[in-house]
């Protein structure tokens, strides 16, 4: 198939950047979206041009590296699918495709389609863990967890930290990412002692990093490749209210 691509090119963090058009022929519909970009890059290199930089690693939808906004949609048109798992058969011959990086003040562009997502790490550092130093653990069966809680904790913990939620949010909020971690840890008995300090710390770090506020539009959840639901945000709000009243 033949494609018209418009790709955001920006040589470094300080450069202005803009959309650059490329035409690509003989794209296999069995190729993944990133493999299509590989083909483009091979061509650019052989023409002596700088290839398009983009983040990617596992290419099986779990590492959370890939991060492209394709035609205005984080990870492209297919629901519950990361860019690396999106295949070209979802497009038609002759399609025009726009490719942009995640757009958020908290995720500055490093180059082309590569952004800096270390703000997410900063949120986790502010409380997204359970303090359990190695060697201090009681037997794993010491605290049974109801299956539905364990399953709900897993569903929240399935977050891959890709940042599609931020990219999709009209407010550039990192609420879904943060809430997924708050929900995961808050659903386990081990997570209870730090439940209140965790949510206060993480929300402060989130705001500090320059993410926008949540207005519950639900765009985050619709874009999430792991289909994390808005219930985690509800849970965060609940925990935050309790923690804030207790702290006051």
């Amino acid at each position, binding site marked *: 198939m033949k494609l018209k691509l418009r790709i955001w090119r920006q040589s470094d963090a300080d450069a202005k950047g803009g959309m650059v058009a490329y035409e690509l022929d003989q794209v296999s519909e069995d190729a993944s979206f990133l493999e299509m970009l590989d083909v483009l890059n091979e061509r650019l290199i052989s023409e002596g041009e700088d290839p398009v930089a983009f983040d990617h690693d596992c290419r099986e939808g779990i590492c959370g590296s890939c991060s492209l906004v394709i035609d205005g949609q984080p990870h492209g048109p*297919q629901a519950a699918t990361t860019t690396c798992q999106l295949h070209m058969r979802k497009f038609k011959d002759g399609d025009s495709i726009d490719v942009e990086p995640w757009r958020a003040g908290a995720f500055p562009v490093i180059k082309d389609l590569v952004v800096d997502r270390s703000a997410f790490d900063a949120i986790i550092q502010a409380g997204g863990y359970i303090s359990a130093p190695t060697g201090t653990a009681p037997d*794993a069966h010491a605290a049974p967890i109801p299956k539905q809680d*364990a399953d709900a904790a897993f569903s929240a913990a399935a977050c891959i930290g890709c940042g599609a939620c931020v990219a999709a949010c009209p407010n550039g909020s990192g609420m879904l990412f943060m809430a997924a971690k708050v929900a995961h840890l808050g659903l386990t008995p081990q997570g209870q002692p730090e439940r209140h300090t965790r949510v206060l710390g993480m929300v402060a770090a989130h705001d500090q990093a320059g993410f926008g506020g949540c207005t519950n539009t639900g765009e985050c959840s619709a874009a999430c490749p792991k289909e994390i639901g808005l219930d985690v945000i509800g849970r965060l709000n609940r925990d935050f209210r309790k923690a804030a009243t207790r702290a006051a």
Partner: protein
Amino acid sequence: MSIDFHREGSPVADAKAPAGPIEDRWEKRRFSGRLVNPANRRKLRVIVVGTGLAGASAAATLGELGYRVANYCFQDSARRAHSIAAQGGINAAKNYRNDGDSVHRLFYDTVKGGDFRSRESNVHRLAEVSTEIIDQCVAQGVPFAREYGGLLDNRSFGGAQVSRTFYARGQTGQQLLLGAYQALQRQVAAGTVDLHTRHEMLELVIVEGKARGIVVRDLVTGEISTELADAVVLATGGYGNVYFLSTNAMGCNVTAGWRAHRKGAYFANPCYTQIHPTCIPQSGDHQSKLTLMSESLRNDGRVWVPKQKNDDRHPAEIPEDERDYYLERRYPAFGNLVPRDIASRAAKVVCDEGHGVGPGGLGVYLDFADAIARLGKQAVEAKYGNLFDMYERITGENPYERPMRIYPAVHYTMGGLWVDYDLSSNIPGLFVTGEANFSDHGANRLGASALMQGLSDGYFVLPNTISDYLADGPFPKVDETHEEVVAARREVDERIAFFLGNDGDRTVDSFHRELGKIMWEYCGMERTDEGLRKAIGLIRDLKAEFYKRVKVTGKAGGLNQELEKAGRVADFFELGELMCIDALHRTESCGGHFRAESQTEDGEAKRDDEHFSYVAAWEYGGDEPVLHKESLVFEYVKPTQRSYK
């Protein structure tokens, strides 16, 4: 130059494992190893390279102990290391099922599964520590699968006769890694760990015979800097990407390990490669990686190929009596559940004979029609729905209606840097953990054991053994101006300058792809004397061409992904050559290493314990590496020929 491309050096031995009853060895070693008092730990600096299960767990634990840790990863976040992609589960000898499991049984199964090419002491320790790992992970909040009673669920995995595998849906690696990542972030917040993401280690610094630091490139700014310390830990994963197509992440590479090898660290058993039988086959030349489908699919799927060669009929049109269920035919006792190496090789055999299906005839059917008829579509969907969806996303085919096509793919490398019982390489101060070392899996790794080893090394083994080395520290101060440091930096600068200055016309990927094809063809599922010799020649020619014709665009300053790849592929060439040399010298078949010359009458792998019951630890020697043998002694598990008939 010898005819076998190598020469033999003096034997090597693991001097650290205590003698005596195997159950007491780890206890004994922990007691005999010296400790560092808490006040002194603050004065000791440890570099950990890698943030996967083995790296993040080690960095976090060392940080908790009070050492000053510098942790590096090339990914944009520590959470993205490739451990995250492990699907199946993690083994532990908890015996929660009362089904006869024990530390000794896990030890026994692992030694046997490794085809008697691993150290008994190491494996026993791994089995002992396994139970602590589960406790630790649960305490961190890892959401393992649970039963309605609220207790942990277990499953039988990879043909084990007991249910000892703990899992979190099909994303166990992700959940364990996030647990370790969170523990690590906690230490970063506490100030005990300096974490450097998007940094790649490009050289090891050795001063007066001791590992004292690394040279790293900041992948964002391109800046080259050195990090100096009292000890260096490499937790840099496996080298399956030497095959270009593998289930590894695109960034997985051998550079850290290979740089250490070039500086004197022995590389052990490089030819032991695990090829996983259930992966989605290649669809074309654009393919950049292969995707694993969980092994659990073989519990209900039946593997077959058309009896007729080059049969391109739709599978539904092929009648039952024209299908060859070759695993069930050849291995009636285990059928579709034979171990990974056997299933993989059997698929290769039928495809080589011309029975393969799909593009290029490189695929076999994994058919769920019987399972759907027996259990109903709903039950199959409940069990494997997410895998079926993944298959459909990638191939565009609906596996409920048409059998899946699968083919083996490189998945894990059992070989790695040689380490002793303390996980120390032969270079003092250089420790190696996780898949990057060679230690516990012998010639074949059992399912759900990789996660166990990574976390065992990082949480429990290394933090206990490294203190014995660090007790002699802090070592004399080394600064940036030391001649060894300057030399190491210069090597890195020169390498980068070479790539960027080379007036070439071929992309890095085109070389990598070609190297991968050679490795897969001659050093893949079946190896022969003739093929390996040919491969060594081909690799050497291709390497020469690489240095002549490789084209790397861009500049040294700033993000340059082509430059990153060029350095990695350059090291893969040298590693690939060593793998072939190792495979050539080991004329027996064992585990993931199958030599066509060494098979039984009915085509099964034949070990040669008399001549090859040793670890092959290779010393760097350019075109002629030096082989140091470490004899393997089996006091508790008597070597037998594996049989799955």
